[in-house]
Structures are given as C-alpha cells and as structure tokens.
C-alpha cells in the first residue's frame, strides 16, 4: 500500500495536479500524492495513519468505514481518495478532544453501545450526522439513520439507546439547538 501513497506538504497552488489530494481531515489540512485508484479508506488508514476508520466488508455493506464527507455520512471503502480532493473529511478521531469524549462517545460508553468495538466508529459518525440534522430523533429515526451500519455483537438495542442518550445530553448542553436542526 505504501507504494500507492506519499504524504507531501500542503500547497497554496490553485492549479493542483489531479493526483494530488488535499483534504481537510478533522479540521486539519492534509495533502498527499496518490494513485487515482487509492480508496479513501486506505488514504485515511494507511496514508494518514488514522486507524479508527475500519474496513469490514470492503463491499459497501457494513458501514464500518463510514466517515463524514462535508458533514454527511459516506462509506470510505467506496470512494476514491481523488474524489475527496478539496473536501472535508471527519473520522472518529475528530470526535473527541484531548481531554473530553464527545457526548456520542460517552453515550456508547454509558449505555454499553459496543462489545468488540469494530463497528463503533462508523456507528458514531452515522449517529453524529443524524444528530447534526435532527437533535430530537425518535427511536425509529435512529434506527433508520443507522440502517447502513451493521453490528455483529450488540443486537443494536444498546447502540440505539446510546444515540438517544447522546441526543438528550447534547440538547441539555445547548437547549437552543433542539429547536434548530434542519429537519
């Protein structure tokens, strides 16, 4: 895989050659030279060494590789790194700060929303996209939003509880947002 990838310094040059990829990854500008066939999941994992994004099925089914692309959930095993050029990508590493867990992460911890943890990063990012749009989701809304993410351990119940827990916590922290949302 390393032969498909070489990290290079970000550039101010507008006239970026096509195989150069520059993304805002968890808020930070990162650039690389890649072969066009490199998948976004591999750029993130092998290239930028952020291994929180998992690849489970590699066939667009399981959602373990879910990242936020301009704020919306996508499966990074089914995107080329070059398609992400100029866009924002958020991975699970972008959720917590150095000192604090994101409420969604707290929810998964408090409500036992994970067992092996393999599906968890993808679940949390799909949940984040939901809560960004809809701070007041019903249980059905949560299940629908997570329907592209498979879990082989938990039976889903506690994942749904974890997301509802996080929704409440986020509403308590920012009551104004509860009316906000863009649903």
């Amino acid at each position, binding site marked *: 895989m390393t032969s498909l990838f070489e990290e290079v310094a970000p550039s101010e040059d507008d006239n970026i050659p096509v195989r150069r990829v520059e993304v805002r990854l968890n808020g930070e500008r990162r650039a690389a030279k890649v072969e*066009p*066939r490199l998948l976004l999941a591999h750029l993130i994992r092998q290239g930028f060494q952020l291994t929180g994004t998992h690849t489970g099925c590699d066939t667009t089914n399981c959602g373990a590789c879910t990242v936020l692309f301009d704020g919306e959930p996508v499966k990074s095993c089914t995107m080329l790194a070059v398609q992400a050029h100029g866009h924002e990508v958020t991975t699970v590493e972008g959720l917590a700060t150095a000192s604090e867990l994101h409420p969604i992460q707290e929810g998964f911890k408090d409500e036992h929303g994970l067992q092996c943890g393999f599906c968890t990063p993808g679940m949390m990012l799909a949940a984040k996209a939901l809560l960004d749009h809809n701070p007041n989701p019903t249980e059905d809304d949560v299940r629908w939003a997570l329907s592209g993410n498979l879990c082989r351990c938990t039976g889903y119940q506690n994942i749904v509880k974890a997301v509802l827990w996080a929704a409440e916590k986020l509403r308590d922290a920012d009551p104004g947002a509860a009316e906000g949302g863009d649903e």
Partner: protein
Amino acid sequence: MIPAPFDYVRAESTEEAIALVGQHGDESKFIAGGHSLLPLMKLRLAQPSVLIDIGRVTDLSYVRDAGDHVAIGALTRHMDVETSEVLREHAPLLAHATSHVGDPQVRHRGTIGGSIAHADPASDLPAVALALGATYVAQGPNGTREIAAADFATSYLESALADDELLTEIRVPKMNGAGWGFEKFNRRAQDWAIVGVAAWRRNGDAGVALVNMGSTPVLATGVVSALADGASVADAAQLAADGTDPQPDLNASIEYRQHLARALTKRALDIASS
C-alpha cells in the same frame, strides 16, 4: 480490493465532460457517485482505462418545477431527490422510492443520473421513471436529444446512451394528484429489491413498472390495459408477470419472482387506488 490502475480526469462542466470523453475514447468512463461503478471496478468486472469524474459538475445538480414536469439534473444525489419539496409534491412516487434506495450513506453518494445510466434492472429508479413515463435528456458532441424511458434500457446494463453522451436531465411528468404505491420486497431493510413494483392511478389512467423482472425494467402493459378495460385490481394484477423473463438467483426462483410480481402489483395498486 483495489481497482486495476486507471487514469483520472475531472470535468468541471457538461461541455468539458463531453470533450474529455471525446479525447479519451471508449476505454474511458464517467464516474458520478461511483456507487455502481466502483464496486464493479473493485471486483475488476469493470476496468476502464480513464475515469472522467463528473461528480463536481454542480450545475447538473437541481430539481426544478418546469410546468408540466419536474426537471432533475443527472448529478442530483439520491438524498436531494428524496428530500425535495418539489418532488414530494409533484412526483411523490419518485421521492418515496428514492428514500428506499440502499442506505443513508449510499444515498449521499449515488446520483439519479448514475442510477438511470447504469441501466441495472434491479435498480428501483429506472422502473419508477418508466412507470411515470419520464424522458431523459442526453448531450453529446452533436448536441442534445431526448430519449423516452421506455426506449432507454436495451439489455442488461446496456442503454440507448452512446459512449460519448452524457445523461444531463431526467424529466418526470407531474403526477397531478395520482394515487401511487411502491412495493419493494427484500429480506433485510435497505437491501436491493428481490422484486419491486411502482404503480400509479389517476381517473382512467395508470402506470405500472417492475424491478428485477428481466434484463431491463419492465412495463406491465397487460395490467394497465386490463385496468383501462375496467378489470378489478385483483384481476389486473394477475397479469403482472405475463411476458416477463426474470432470472433465478440465491434469493428467488423464476416462479417465486413471478408470484411476487403479481402479489406486489396488487398491493401497490390497492394503495394507489385507495
């Protein structure tokens, strides 16, 4: 799984996309959302030598009220079709069916144009567009032309689009209050349809099309003419599988698919008639 090597170019406009395909020839392929093409390339069932990325041609991403029809840009993502107020009002069958395509992640990447151009008989949207009598607009080096949905799919994954033509717009006639039903039968939520049926009814008129009942999406013409002749929904739906040629697979035999076509047509028409 990693695709075979290919070259990659980006088009910023419709014209540039067409110029690029002219330059790179028939070994090149457009990539829109990539949610049909990339899975095939990862399995190396498709090995284009050049990918022309049309994902940034944002002027082809729109939903517009155009009088008697709704005009949808080919690059409009499923998520934007499903949530479009114009479509919810004037073509609710399409908005609803689109909300059942794959899962949320798929709907954030996949485009309506990619779905139509790919001409997969297992896809939901080609059948919906066929039932509604949609028209497609294609643009090539010699200008634009219209293709009726009924003339579009020619065989499995093959369409009337020329290699150097870009699908630019999908025109969906307004449903004008028609009743409608969309029945998608699958084993797990968010899966592809084993069989699907899109149907609408308004006064004496009706349209019914089937997903995954042959090498192309299929118009259930027998059902529609029986309804026009005054047959009951139950009797008309019995004709849904006539003349179809579905393939057997792990999910369903030919007989089971034909049974599903009849049962789902009845359900969809019952809902459309209520």
